Every structure is written in structure tokens, then in C-alpha cells.
């Protein structure tokens, strides 16, 4: 309302928060998007995988220390994703993709309760190592090192790896071809079900990693899953279904703009993403980077 009273430091603060949020959004949305692009199915349990990643980090940090805990949590969630795909998603291949959405919705309910059963209803906290807590001073501003420098570096590295995997490896060729026409790739003698399991695992791993990285920043609680899954959907719709660059631009856009909304009109922070989505739907229904006709 009082735009004049907002000063540069506040804007920078919110920009920092927005970038942090954006990095995590990118990882979660990219995971969902990879699965969606290749298999054409939505994983409603993706938010639950994110949450499980965060809780696993909480459990593993006292045992293994901070760094191994993050890696382990992500890998465990990834393997769990493979198992999930093999046991529950695979029987639904021949059916309409809506049924996978329904099944994963039911499983998301189950996961939420299992998490409550194991870790309880109350929020838990994960402490980050002392080395990462100190702020770093750039141009006179103190930036939180973990939230803004470390997270950006990790996300950039992961994005580069995923990009290399998709664009420069044999597996990537199969994934890209499968996204266009999975039937045809199968006829060429590629074991598509194994490919699907692998990709589902990678997507889940990204969600688990995002959860592990988010654990020291946000309160880890059982309703984390439902909060994140809807925002992930919004990012995917804004960025374009199944698109690598869409997930990145969508995640950053919504992360930063919803943080900025904190300065402009605080009650509408949660609505920012939906407003952007509504706008995108009106002017460009397939999303910023979406392929025309793929999912329309």
C-alpha cells in the first residue's frame, strides 16, 4: 500500500528470500516435470517425497553428520521413488493418466499419516553446521550464506547435471525420444518400463534433495507435503508442462514475486502464484516454455 515507505534493504531481503524459495521450487518442479514429460503422469505424492526428504535429514543428521545426511536422504527418497513406480504406478500404465493421479493422491494421504506416526504432529528443526550459518558480506549487505550462496550453487550444479543427463548421454536420448513417442521407442527395442522406473527415481530424488536442503530453513511438519504440491503444480503450469527451462523460470518467478508480495500486500502472498497462473492461462495456456498441443 505504502510503496514509498519500502526501502532498498527490504527489497533486497525479500529478493534473498525469494531466490531461496525459488531454488527449492525449481528442484521440486523439475522432478515433477521430468516424470510428467516422459511418462505423461502426475505424481501427487511428489510433495510427500519432498517432506520425507526433510524428515529423513532430521533423523540422519545426528547419526551421520550434516553433509552425508543430505545426500543419503535424497538417495533414499530416490530409491523409494523407484520402488513406488515399480509397485504402484506400473500397473496403471494401460489406463488413463487420471488414474495415476488418483492413486498417488491416495498414497499421499497414506504417506502423510505414516510421517505423523513416525515423527509426530509437531514441527521439528534441523540445525545447519556452524560454518554455513555466518552471513557473507557483499557490497555492504549481509547475505545469509546457506540460504543464498550455498543453495544457489547446489541448485546450479544439480541443474547442470540434469541438463547434461538429458542432453548429452544415451539415457537422455532415450528420455527425449520417449517424451515424443514412448510407443515408438519401445518398438525400437528399448526397455521402456525400466526407463520409466529410472526417471521416476530421478524425479523423486530431486524432490527428496529439495526437502533435505529445505530442512534447515523451514519448520519440518506433516502438512509440508500438501503446501508444496499445489505450488509445484502452479509452477509446472506457469513454466510449461514437461519443460526443463519452464521449471527453472517458473520456480524463480513465483519464488521471487511471492516474496515481493510480502512488501506490497502481505495477505496476498499465497495468492501470488495463482494470480500469475491465471494470467498465464489467459494469454499463453501451454505455459511459458510449454510445447503446443502436448497436454492440451
Amino acid at each position, binding site marked *: 500500500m505504502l510503496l514509498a515507505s519500502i526501502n532498498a534493504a527490504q527489497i533486497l531481503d525479500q529478493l534473498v528470500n525469494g531466490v531461496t524459495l525459488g531454488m527449492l521450487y525449481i528442484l521440486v518442479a523439475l522432478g515433477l516435470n521430468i516424470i510428467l514429460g516422459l511418462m505423461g503422469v502426475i505424481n501427487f505424492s511428489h510433495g510427500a517425497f519432498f517432506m520425507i526428504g526433510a524428515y529423513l535429514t532430521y533423523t540422519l543428521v545426528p547419526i551421520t553428520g550434516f553433509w552425508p545426511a543430505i545426500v543419503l536422504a535424497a538417495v533414499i527418497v530416490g530409491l523409494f521413488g523407484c520402488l513406488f513406480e515399480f509397485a*504402484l504406478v506400473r500397473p496403471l500404465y494401460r489406463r488413463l493418466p487420471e488414474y495415476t493421479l488418483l492413486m498417488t493422491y491416495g498414497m499421499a494421504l497414506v504417506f502423510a499419516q505414516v510421517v505423523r506416526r513416525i515423527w509426530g504432529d509437531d514441527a521439528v528443526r534441523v540445525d545447519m553446521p556452524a560454518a554455513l550459518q555466518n552471513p557473507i558480506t557483499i557490497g555492504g549487505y549481509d547475505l545469509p550464506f546457506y540460504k543464498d550462496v550455498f543453495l544457489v550453487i547446489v541448485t546450479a550444479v544439480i541443474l547442470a547435471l540434469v541438463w547434461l543427463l538429458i542432453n548429452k548421454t544415451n539415457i537422455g536420448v532415450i528420455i527425449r525420444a520417449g517424451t515424443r513417442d514412448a510407443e515408438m521407442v519401445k518398438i525400437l527395442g528399448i526397455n521402456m518400463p525400466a526407463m520409466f522406473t529410472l526417471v521416476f527415481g530421478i524425479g523423486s530424488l530431486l524432490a527428496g534433495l529439495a526437502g533435505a536442503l529445505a530442512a534447515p530453513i523451514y519448520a519440518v511438519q506433516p502438512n509440508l507435503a500438501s503446501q508444496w504440491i499445489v505450488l509445484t503444480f502452479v509452477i509446472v503450469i506457469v513454466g510449461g508442462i514437461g519443460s526443463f527451462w519452464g521449471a527453472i523460470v517458473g520456480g524463480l518467478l513465483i519464488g521471487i514475486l511471492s516474496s515481493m508480495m510480502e512488501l506490497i500486500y502481505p495477505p496476498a502472498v*499465497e495468492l501470488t502464484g495463482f494470480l500469475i*497462473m491465471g494470467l498465464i492461462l489467459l494469454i499463453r495456456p501451454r505455459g511459458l516454455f510449454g510445447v503446443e498441443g502436448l497436454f492440451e
Partner: protein
Amino acid sequence: MRRVFSSPLLWTAVVFVILPFVAGANPLHYSGGFIDIGTTMLCFALFASGFNLLFGHVGELSFGHAMFFAIAAYTTALYTKGFDLNLFGFPYHHDPGGNMLLALAWSLGLTLLWGWLLARIIVPRSSGIYYSMITLAFAQVIFFITYKFGDFTGGEDGLQGIARPQLPGLPADWLQSSLHFYIFAAIVTFLTLALLYWIIESPFGSVLHAIRENKERARFLGYDVNKYRVNAFVLSTLFPAVGGWLWAYYQTSINPDAGSVAYSGDVVMMSLLGGIYSFFGPVLGAIIYWEMQNGVSQVTKFWEAWIGIVFVVFVLVGPRGIMGLLDDLRRYGISQFVRRSVSKDARMETDLAEELPPVVH
């Protein structure tokens, strides 16, 4: 005569009459409030049936129908309680109102407006899972409005103390009794479901089925598919609205949960459990869902997990729900039914089009 007895409306009426005597009487635990849970089932029967007009009859999965339930419930609550609003410096004051028909008219009107607006935006631009994601996201808009704008909607606590209406010719406190409210709700629900039945059985309903089976063919037959899809969407929002209207009066309070993802998901589960290709399915699903909720929640506080597991099993092995299983049982007989459920080959022999089952009642 045969047609009357095979009519699902008759069965709906019969079920509504016996429901207050059996609902809530779960074998796991004795619980009171038989009639109260019956009224809950009625509200959700309407809610789920409206949702299923889209999912079962047009083949489009909306994951956001709770928004229409919430809009109607909040409208009724605000109309009944009165409110003060200050929109960009223009104050508006509304006195508490007691006319239930006016509350219904406002509820339906606002739902219709929002539903029509959404349908015009969403329907031509999306289908399939994309459609599900978008409806879910738009439902969150309504959820956050009810949650965040507390001055108007009561925020997290919601609105309490909604007065139940007075029926003409009856004592002022007649609806205060649980049983009386059940009777009122059962009559309203039955009449509204009759309207839904009429819609589904009409030529309009047949076109919806054609669109569900094959959009392209329906288009080649000369039907404006998107127009039908928009109309079906708008119609499907009205039944949750009537449910929400009843719900606000029944609960005498309302909170943001009414528009949450969980409520949207609940009606999806109810419809699928009952059977999406059947008129009676969502009604049966609502009854079974609340019966399970009532029973399991007394044994464990993690009841949602068990309902989730039951739902997943149905999605995996019985996507046509209980009504679909009953239909198979009637069609194939018990021995063949058992053979079909264990052997894939037997299923192939008897069922050529598993993906596109006929409408059963």
C-alpha cells in the same frame, strides 16, 4: 412398473429413509449421533454427485470442487449472520437475514458466476490431467481467500453461530432437532438429486456420455464439444452449492476446511469408491466414506491412511467402484465373477472394453 423399480431414484429414496437408523452404527465401536452423521452423508452425497457429473459422465477429473461447496457455505453463513464490508473505501452493511431461500439464491448465484467464469477460462484451454491440476490450483485461491481475509471470513476459525432457518407453518425451533434437520436435508437432497438424474437422462446427458467416450467423434457428429463441456462444468457446480448451503445450516459454523484440497479429494474418493459410472455410486460412496471415517477414527487417529489404502486398492483393481462390482456380479453370476477377478484371461474373454464400461444404474 419395472422401470420404476429399477430407477436409482427409488433406491436413493429408500436409502434416505433407512439411513438415520443405520448410519453411525458401526460394529467397531458404539457411537451416538446416528442422525448427525446421516446429515453429513446427505450433504456430501450432493457434493459428490455434482462432482461426478463431470468425472463420471464427461470423463473430466476436477480436483477443486470444494471451492463451490465453500463459496455456497460461506455465502449462506455471511447472509445469515450479516457482515460489514469495506471495499476500496465503499462501506457496505448487511443485516442478518433469515430467509433460507434468499440464502440459497445468493449461494447459487455466486457459485454460478464463479463456476461460469472458471469454465470459460479452464475448459477450452485444458483437458486430462492438466485440467485436474488447474482446477486444484483455482480451488486454492478460494481456500486462501477464506483463510487469509479474516476480517470478512473469520480466517482460520471461520464463522460460528449460523442460525438455522425457520420453515413456514412450523414452530420456529423445529429445525433445531437433529432428526427434523435430517428430514429437511433428506427432502432437499432427494429433490436436487432428482434434478441431476433428469439432467443425466436427458439428451444433454447422452451428449456428455458421447464426449466422454470419444471427443473427436462427438465433434464430428456436429456437437459443439466445448460448449457442452462448459455447460456441464457450470451445472456440476450447482450441486455442491446446494450441499454447502445445507452444510452451513447443519453445522451452524463454517471454516476454511470446507474449501481445502482435502475436501476436493474426499469427493473424488467417494465417487470412485461408490462407482463413477453409476448415478447412485457417489451417494453410496459418501455414505461408505463417512461410515469408514466414523468407524476407523475411533480405533486410530491415523484413519486417513486406512481410507487412503482402501481408495488405492479400488483405483488399482476396481476402478468402477462398488456399483461396478455389483454390476459385474449381476451380469456374470458369482462363479464367473470370481473367475474374472482372479484370471486375466477370463476377463479378456468376457470383457472387450474394460476401459469404456457402459453406464450402469
